[in-house]
């Protein structure tokens, strides 16, 4: 079905199921309980999960398959956001032209940057992409203020022309009238689940993006990209021109980043230069490696993991900690909180950094490898007599 083999179809269906049920699955704790702060099922955060999922899926096509480590992909994210906001200012608050333009502009932009950067490989390629991204950031921040509105960031306003919108058109990003921020909240007992239009649009696009990435992974084109990573010399002496392959991978991943940027702007119609900063480029590298570079599912997991940490772990402050450890005697309670304090709240980066180190050292294949190991452990216990079939799956 859908041109996928059974296993890939299973992965796709699993992701689809998780994405569709996310508003329920991510809200496992009753709304008024002490654990409610660990609920991630609110639209704003879920949108971030899937948007950065798209970003990482695209990045993985470049980094995971060809091994070219780009440190500048946030530039395409930012370009996508700016394009989308401009579309919403000039044409219509409908998100479709905004998203289309963000993909196209990011694609064109990545042709230029990719063409120049891919003249080199290895660390020189990484530095070139980093330099380009920082250039874009600085341009957006200062010189290009008429287009980007500099420090303040590009926003929509009531005086925008919006030539396609009628007088009564909604003044918030919408899909044919359905506003991105409109949501239905359903209470089940003491649980509360929020289903928003914006999230489901993002989730559907993420599924399309995921599906395309599976097709690329399994195609002859994907095989060539993996060959680029493995041995460029042999490729050249096998009559294959590596340059267009790497450029195509770069542009595809740039368009994914543009789509993510466009969606960010569609969910919240503003775009700022900080979206292009090198920390944002580094974040997608972390997501991909943490989840498992070169695997299908890895980038999605990595994106979800990091965004969850960023939004949930950072909320744990001393008051929350005191709440948890109040059953202990005062002295011990204070002592434990002093130890935990640097790792939570504003210190969430520290925990994330430690986890990242652990993953890179012990699970070089990322979270996906962790999952596979656990799976293998169970399978071995279940059927010790089964001989392995010897088939190798290069990417999960």
């Amino acid at each position, binding site marked *: 079905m859908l041109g996928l083999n059974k296993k890939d179809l299973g992965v796709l269906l699993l992701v689809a199921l998780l994405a569709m049920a996310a508003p329920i699955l991510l809200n496992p704790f009753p709304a008024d309980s002490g654990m409610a702060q660990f609920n991630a099922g609110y639209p704003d955060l879920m949108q971030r999960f899937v948007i950065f999922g798209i970003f990482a899926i695209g990045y993985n096509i470049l980094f995971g398959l060809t091994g070219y480590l780009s440190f500048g992909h946030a530039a395409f994210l930012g370009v996508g956001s700016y394009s989308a906001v401009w579309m919403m200012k000039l044409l219509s608050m409908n998100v479709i032209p905004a998203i289309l333009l963000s993909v196209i502009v990011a694609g064109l932009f990545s042709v230029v940057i990719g063409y120049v950067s891919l003249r080199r490989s290895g660390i020189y390629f990484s530095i070139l992409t980093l330099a380009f991204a920082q250039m874009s950031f600085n341009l957006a921040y200062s010189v290009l203020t008429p287009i980007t509105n500099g420090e303040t960031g590009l926003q929509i306003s009531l005086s925008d022309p919006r030539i396609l919108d009628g007088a009564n058109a909604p003044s918030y990003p919408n899909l044919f009238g359905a506003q991105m921020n409109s949501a239905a909240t359903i209470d089940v007992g003491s649980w509360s689940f929020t289903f928003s239009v914006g999230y489901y649009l993002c989730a559907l696009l993420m599924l399309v993006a995921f599906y395309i990435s599976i*097709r690329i992974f399994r195609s*002859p084109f994907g095989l*060539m990209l993996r*060959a680029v990573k493995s041995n460029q010399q042999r490729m050249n002496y*096998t*009559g294959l021109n590596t340059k267009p392959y790497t450029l195509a991978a770069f542009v595809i991943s740039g368009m994914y980043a543009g789509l993510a940027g466009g969606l960010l702007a569609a969910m919240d119609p503003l775009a700022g230069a900080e979206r292009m900063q090198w920390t944002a480029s580094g974040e997608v590298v972390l997501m991909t490696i943490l989840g498992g570079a070169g695997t299908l599912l890895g980038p999605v997991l990595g994106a979800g993991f990091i965004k969850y940490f960023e939004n949930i772990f950072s909320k744990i402050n001393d008051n929350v900690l005191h709440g948890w450890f109040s059953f202990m005697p005062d002295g011990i309670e204070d002592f434990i909180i002093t130890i935990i304090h640097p790792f939570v709240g504003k210190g969430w980066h520290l925990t994330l950094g430690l986890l990242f180190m652990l993953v890179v050292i012990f699970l070089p294949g990322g979270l996906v490898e962790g999952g596979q190991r656990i799976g293998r452990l169970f399978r071995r216990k279940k059927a010790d007599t089964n001989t392995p079939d010897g088939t190798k799956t290069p990417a999960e």
Partner: protein
Amino acid sequence: MNILEVKNVNKRFGGLQALGNVNLNVAENTVHAIIGPNGAGKSTLLNCLVGKLIPDTGSVMFDGRSVLGRKPYEINQMGISRVFQTPEIFGDLSVQENMLIPCFAKRDGAFALNGYGSVGSQRDVIDKAEEMLVEMKLADKRHMHAASMSRGDKRRLEIAMCLAQDPRLLLLDEPTAGMARADTNNTIDLLKQIKEERDITIAIIEHDMHVVFSLAERITVLAQGTPLVEDTPDNIKGHPKVREAYLGESQDAA
């Protein structure tokens, strides 16, 4: 008819004249060996044939067309395949995937944005790769990680990958370097078998006299960047100039 014609090729690296007025003709459907002591310019010559180096002067014609100024992948598409001294294969991929890549290169050319259909649905390429795997006795290793194979098998795979493209000229750069005697003999048998079964020209650079004399129909001896003699193996064996330049030196080295 000559498939490869090298005329007056010179190549200089700084003060070193690596190749001086090299003339070499390789006749179609023969096995032609190029031998010579270390530093004779064998590898430089080979690199000039495949586009890795561009000679300072002279011409290199393959099948009536110049290869000079063309990129390695273009020269490969013209029909020259190269086997490296240390096997160059796609170590991260499976043996079968290694075999598929030259088959795709043969069918689709230097670049094809074939991103939609799955690899498994390209029956013609899968069948061609399978045929080569069976012919080269690698079929039982098809799911193996290529990097984890033995050196001899890697060499066999690399040769298989080159043959999958149906090249007209196969260049081998010291194909038995660093191999045990048994592996060397296997490689000799393999090359003999390839020569018998296909219309193919083989040019081979080799140190090992045993390999050269069991395979070659013509031998060119290179010394200090210039061809000393070109003749049949029997005549080369007894040639005084060759003894002096080549065999004499190899005794010193030993």
